[in-house]
């Protein structure tokens, strides 16, 4: 029985951080109606910034979040303004050309990091790395627990931002009906830029929180793009609450897959859930609440 609880807690903690990353993606997807394949690369950059902060300046990873987030916010705004927005209104045969552009951006970001840091695995060793505490006979990793708590705080803060501030409401309004938002006086062009910035900042936060737990290398982004998709599809596009539940679900599913099926096949579990949800629950979990 304790294996069960161990697996559940592990999955839940990791799922919380996944959720934070996926919320960034779902925000972008909601407002721009595009799938951002560069999202994982943004996570990766957030990780490298944290690594640099720790390695060269001795800044604790959990403090580095205050550097990685603004940095990625700025980077995200630039990407949206100078590349993705350029494509708006351009006609091409492939309707997915904005998505393909994000692939190009992913390549650029990944290769830039590879050029600077090389392809080898890096990790950050803090005083609390590898420490844990016990609830009953279930051991809980301290860095994972801290990351989870911070992720949940950010998720809640974002929720407040989106529901209680004018900019937050404008973001939601743009996602729901862009033209109507314009009529309300919302500069939707600016909103897309802010949203991409915000989504990138959340990706960075997620990346930073994973640094004490994961290794980092330039290609780690791919894993997070895939996870974010799965979560977004699970939760329903553009839904932050959906993404939270999707994230926790994926974390738990992966964790159980790893424990009870095989460590190596845990990623397959995610993809299989993804296809099943895509086929049988096209609106994600969000559509269940609408009945």
């Amino acid at each position, binding site marked *: 029985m304790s294996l069960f609880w161990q697996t559940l807690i592990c999955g839940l903690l990791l799922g919380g951080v996944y959720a934070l990353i996926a919320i960034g993606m779902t925000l972008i997807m909601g407002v721009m109606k*595009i*799938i951002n394949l560069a999202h994982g690369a943004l996570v990766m950059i957030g990780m490298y910034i944290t690594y640099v902060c720790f390695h060269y300046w001795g800044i604790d990873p959990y403090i580095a979040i205050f550097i990685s987030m603004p940095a990625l916010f700025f980077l995200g705004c630039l990407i949206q303004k100078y*590349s993705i927005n*350029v*494509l708006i209104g*351009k*006609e*091409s*045969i*492939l*309707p*997915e*050309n904005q*998505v*393909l*552009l994000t*692939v*190009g*951006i*992913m*390549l*650029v970001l*990944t*290769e*830039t990091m*590879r*050029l600077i840091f090389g392809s080898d695995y890096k990790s950050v060793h803090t005083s609390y790395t590898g420490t844990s505490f016990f609830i009953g006979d279930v051991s809980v990793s301290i860095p994972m627990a801290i990351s989870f708590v911070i992720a949940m705080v950010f998720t809640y803060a974002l929720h407040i931002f989106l529901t209680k501030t004018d900019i937050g409401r404008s973001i939601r309004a743009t996602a729901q009906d862009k033209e109507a938002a314009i009529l309300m006086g919302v500069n939707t062009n600016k909103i897309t830029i802010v949203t991409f910035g915000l989504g990138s900042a959340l990706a960075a936060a997620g990346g930073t929180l994973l640094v004490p737990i994961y290794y980092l290398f330039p*290609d780690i982004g*791919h894993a997070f793009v*895939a996870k974010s*998709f*799965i979560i977004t*599809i699970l939760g329903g596009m553009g839904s932050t609450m959906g993404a939270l539940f999707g994230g926790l679900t994926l974390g738990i599913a992966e964790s159980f897959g790893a424990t009870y099926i*095989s460590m*190596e*096949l845990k*990623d*397959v579990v995610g*993809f*299989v859930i*993804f*296809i099943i949800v*895509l*086929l049988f629950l*096209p609106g994600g979990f969000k559509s269940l609440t609408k009945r």
Partner: protein
Amino acid sequence: MLKKFWFLSIIIVIAIILPLIVQSSYYRHIFILILIWGALGVAWNLLGGYTGQVSFGHAAFFGVGAYGAGLLAFHLHISPWWGMIVGPVAAVIVSIPIGLICFRLRGPYFALAMLAVGEICRLVFTQWVSLTNGAMGILTLTTFSSKLPYYYIGLAILSFSVYTVYRLMNSRAGYYFVSIREDQDAAESLGIPTTKYKMYSLIPSAFFSGLAGAFYMNYMNYIEPSVVFSLPDVSIMIILVVILGGVATLWGPVVGAIIFVVLSELLRSSLGPAHLLVFGVIVCLVIMYMPNGIMGEVDRIKKLLQRKGARIGSEIT
């Protein structure tokens, strides 16, 4: 018409005598890579460009084709050249259930489902060690010491795929493919069974991807899941090859393959480790400023020069 015939003849002659003139084995290797990427691009373009079903997971078919050939040699000790039949057939067999499931989805959802399919294949082939030898991959013996035979086999594969697509696009199926891309609802209401025709587009696409994969296996003599099922290096690169050359044009993928391979090699030799970065920047610029690829732009420039917007002629190919 006559002009076209001469143009085509000249290209064929060049393609045949080129490796006889260029003796360097490095250059011949480049030519063979172009042929493989060309065939892959042509295959992807049939489904993604003409039929509008953008797939982010074509590595699945490429990889299954490659493993179809590799596993024959690995388990049964048969010449992997038999894989040139087994590989594409395996890719087609795999494509049928994939198509039936994924074609229930439209647009970006389809693209993503295909991405998941590709990744599932990669993970399964990596983990199923008893069947596939896992991440260690499969090694076979080299058949020919010269690159020349490989070149001609590759050329045959590329010609076969271009010819097949040409025939398809000049038949009823071709018109139906483009109709589905342009407006699926309108196509349905014109009596076009869209799912069936998407399958008709997917099956040859999977076949040629598998054939290219099987040939790749025979040429490289080594495959592993992380290479042949790679999302960034195969699935995404195919799309970029097609975009570079020209989406939904007959020769676009071939032109794209030439540019892609030559550019990568040039960048690699001149820039060293930065070559992928520069490549990525070029990709972004192409998508932003030439969304219909070189061949698409050529058409536009031609039209501008001719100033005969009205007389485009019925050429969907």
